[in-house]
């Protein structure tokens, strides 16, 4: 146990953890909502800033270790800050700056008692996630994992008076724990009977292919439950709408990435061997998850559910990158593995910015209008122009459009696909083009979803006049938080090479290779392999578009009178035009529902022409719930009822059971 006298990055990170815990306790004891929103949340954002800065510095430095004598006797906490941890700490810090700043504005009207508790849990959640990234033994990892799961459970059930929210919270807790058991078993296999649960021992252990595969599958299942990989995604669309918006942002933007971290840590760092079919499984699962997520996102009418399904999609895309990296790595094509892994990590970082931004944006809409249902919103760009602009950035980024950040990671991933011919496995050679096609399809569908999301909330006429009239634009703190995240989306899109030089440390650690993009053609040119093979320069792209727009505006202003007349919308001369004639959320999603009919369980009640009070009802159900979960529940119930037969509530029957058991024991054990 030696804490070095000079301040290591790890010490500063531990300092931030203690600082956050103190802030949480301070909030708990102050019970003053003005104090909490005005001082504690901005202070938390400052902690995040320090964390992000330290993480950036420690990416390039060798791993730091620490052993804290805090746990059980003989079972101290092992901590380690290496490149992989540092990258995810950077993600955590950078995204939570925006979320904490936003929270300072968002929670200002909350009752102080609830807020104090929420603020405490919020900081505990942050601490839990930070420790997950730092843990270097299975014991601390599980402890931090559970802290994270439980604190987020309580955050999700902030409005626990509502039965649906309690139900959503329960589902979340259940699946989180099914996953946790699987992770625990995965660590159990990896320690291989040594009784030593440090990651260092696991790295040193040599598992044979069978046990390594068991470990990988357990990890994929366990972390998949947290990430929302199919079919363990069911909690996501329930829990995200239930939680307050900053919490949804935190869960979707950051917490899902802890699962990505876990998969990477286990499969690239702790396990020594990698088999190609692990990658094929991850790739296939990722694609199914991505397509499923985006299809369901397109038919949602609740804006937060829509974003939750979109998170499932993005996790799928990240998993595709990881799967591809495993495939390449197992065939010793490390340069390509580094490319695929860079794409996955880059997309994780992107998603934490853009999804946090959009979830926070829905929070402001919710506060301003009290509506989560897309069908009752509309026209908010006039009432909330500041919010509309910032959300537009997130929308375009999530739709994967250049020159924003979502495009960069998809570009990298597609490049990785294009470089894959020549894999020494014919099945993979068939899988890869289909996978590339499916990925392109889900990226294109994401644009559909985002047009629906933005168009229905912010554009058009207000669908319910009374709702949008009282809407007020965001306050300063909310604006700061959102603007930070929007700036992040833009910066991640415009300076990919700078970001990738930092990701290079991670890929160097995990697959022993990096892209080294700057060395090739300078900081503006993203050239993952060779300049002749592929290059992308977002600066020139945006310069060309901005110049084009500005030049056109200038020329039009110069040579044209510039007169504008306002009048009623023309709409092909159609005289009666009301807000109810616009597409609803269901209407906009209808083509997708019709084309992909097979995947949806559609319930539709259409009135007959003679109904006095016509009533229309349509809903789409998640079929996986019926195919996977209900059968399990039924089997459980059946077993329970069988077990129930043993119980009669009469004392002599229980005595008889004891007697029979004793006899049996005597007969067998002797």
């Amino acid at each position, binding site marked *: 146990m030696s804490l070095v006298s000079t301040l290591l990055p790890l010490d500063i990170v531990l300092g931030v953890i203690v600082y956050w815990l103190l802030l949480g306790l301070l909030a708990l004891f102050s019970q003053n909502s003005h104090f909490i929103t005005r001082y504690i949340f901005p202070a938390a954002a400052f902690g995040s800033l320090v964390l992000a800065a330290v993480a950036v510095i420690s990416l390039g430095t060798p791993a730091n270790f620490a052993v804290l004598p805090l746990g059980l006797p003989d079972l101290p906490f092992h901590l380690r800050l290496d490149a992989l941890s540092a990258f995810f700490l950077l993600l955590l810090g950078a995204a939570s700056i925006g979320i904490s700043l936003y929270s300072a504005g968002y929670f200002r009207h909350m009752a102080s008692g609830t807020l104090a508790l929420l603020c405490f849990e919020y900081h505990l959640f942050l601490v839990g996630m930070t420790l997950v990234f730092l843990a270097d033994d299975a014991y601390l990892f599980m402890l931090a994992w559970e802290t994270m799961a439980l604190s987020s459970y309580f955050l999700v059930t902030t409005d626990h008076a509502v039965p649906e929210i309690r139900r959503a919270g329960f589902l979340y807790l259940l699946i989180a724990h099914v996953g946790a058991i699987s992770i625990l078993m995965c660590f159990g296999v990896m320690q291989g009977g040594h009784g030593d649960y440090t990651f260092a021992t696991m790295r040193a252990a040599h598992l044979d292919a069978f046990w390594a595969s068991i470990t990988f599958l357990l990890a994929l299942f366990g972390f998949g439950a947290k990430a929302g990989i199919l079919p363990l995604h069911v909690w996501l669309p329930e829990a995200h709408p239930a939680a307050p918006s900053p919490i949804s942002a935190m869960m979707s933007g950051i917490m899902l990435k802890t699962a990505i971290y876990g998969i990477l840590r286990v499969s690239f760092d702790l396990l020594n061997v990698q088999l190609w079919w692990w990658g094929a499984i991850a790739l296939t699962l990722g694609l199914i998850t991505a397509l499923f997520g985006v299809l369901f996102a397109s038919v949602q009418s609740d804006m937060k559910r829509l974003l939750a399904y979109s998170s499932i999609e993005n996790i799928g895309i990240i998993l595709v990158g990881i799967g591809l990296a495993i495939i390449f790595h197992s065939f010793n094509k490390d340069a390509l593995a580094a490319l695929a892994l860079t794409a996955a990590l880059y997309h994780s970082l992107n998603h934490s910015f853009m999804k946090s931004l959009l979830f926070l944006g829905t929070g402001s809409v919710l506060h301003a209008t009290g509506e989560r249902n897309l069908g009752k919103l509309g026209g908010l760009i006039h009432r909330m122009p500041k919010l509309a602009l910032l959300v537009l950035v997130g929308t375009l980024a999530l739709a994967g459009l250049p020159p924003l950040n979502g495009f960069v990671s998809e570009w990298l991933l597609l490049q990785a696909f294009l470089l894959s011919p020549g894999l020494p496995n014919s099945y993979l050679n068939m899988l890869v083009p289909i996978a590339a096609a499916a990925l392109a399809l889900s990226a294109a569908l994401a644009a559909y979803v985002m047009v629906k999301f933005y168009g229905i909330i912010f554009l058009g006429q207000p669908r319910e006049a009374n709702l949008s009239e009282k809407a007020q634009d965001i306050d300063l703190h909310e604006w700061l938080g959102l603007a930070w995240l929007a700036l992040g989306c833009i910066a991640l899109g415009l300076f990919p090479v700078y970001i990738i030089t930092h990701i290079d440390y991670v890929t160097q650690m995990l697959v022993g290779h990096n892209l080294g993009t700057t060395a090739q053609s300078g900081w503006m040119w993203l050239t993952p392999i060779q300049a002749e093979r592929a290059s992308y320069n977002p600066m020139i792209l945006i310069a060309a578009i901005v110049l084009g727009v500005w030049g056109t505006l200038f020329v039009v202003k110069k040579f044209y009178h510039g*007169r504008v007349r306002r*009048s009623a919308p023309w709409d092909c001369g159609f005289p009666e035009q009301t807000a109810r004639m616009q597409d609803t959320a269901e209407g906009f999603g209808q083509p997708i529902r019709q084309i992909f009919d097979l995947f949806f369980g559609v319930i539709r009640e259409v009135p007959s022409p003679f109904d006095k009070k016509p009533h229309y009802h349509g809903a789409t159900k998640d079929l996986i719930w019926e195919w996977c979960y209900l059968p399990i529940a039924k089997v459980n119930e059946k077993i329970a009822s069988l077990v129930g037969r043993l119980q009669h509530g009469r004392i002599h029957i229980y005595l008889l059971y004891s007697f029979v058991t004793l006899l049996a024991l005597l007969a067998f054990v002797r």
Partner: protein
Amino acid sequence: MNGIFLQIFQNLLVLLLAPLLVGWVNQCRAWLQNRSGAGVLQPYRKLVKLFHKDAVLADNASPLFRFTPYILFSSMWLAASLVPVIATDLPLSPAVDVIALVGIFALARVFISLAAMDIGTSFGTLGARREMLVGFLAEPALLMVFFSAALISQSTSLVTIVETLAQKQFVIYPSLAFAAIAFVMVLLAENARIPVDNPSTHLELTMIHEAMILEYSARHLALIEWASALKLFAYTTIGFSLFMPWGIAEAGTLKSLPLALFILLIKLSIAGASLALLETVTAKMRIFRVPEFMGTAFLLAVLGMLIHFLLGS
């Protein structure tokens, strides 16, 4: 220096030539339908007319609505300038490869769809929904077409693709054959051409592109029309680059420019006439058949790529 000169030349060339292509297609169509037609210069006259009018904006038009035509115009101009039309030595080309090119088309599509939803009319949202419906299948299909070519030339840079394909002797790649059919289908759909949409009608319940731009007038409409022309031009020249790359001046020698320009004009007139013929002999589809049409294009493109992976050629 040559490169910069060529780039500027190409930028101006595509800007000025794009309406001519539209005019030529319309003229050919008129001849095929036994009409005399308005002449190939009609699109220019229309642009001039629109630029002189007063812009009428709907009461509730937001800044997004006013801004979109400019974004649309400049992104389509950029897209058309990036394609190696007469020479491959373009300094802008390495900045944007084929994937980014698809991204630029998507950017334009998302903006025009958002603008269509801005006024909140029934036609506007209808058009936006249908445009995104066509787009979400056309975009991956186009990407797969590009990938088939990129796999042959080992590069996603359009310039490298053209150079590789133009230098090789004439071989029919099976993957490119599939890709070519898929590309034509995508071209028709993305440019609001006949089996999918009809560029020459208003007030039709099956309209897509026209429904989105109903509320635009004057300079905004002119910019959108010009952008559509540029888009058709970009798609046509992409088709040339992938499937008939011969005659594009390489290495940026200025001497070969006149010949390249001549060849380009011949190719454009043939392509325009074929497009007019295709539009005349086919009938417009029901809107619900469009996903099947686009799905076929997508599957053909994927099949092309799969064949490349399986045959390794």
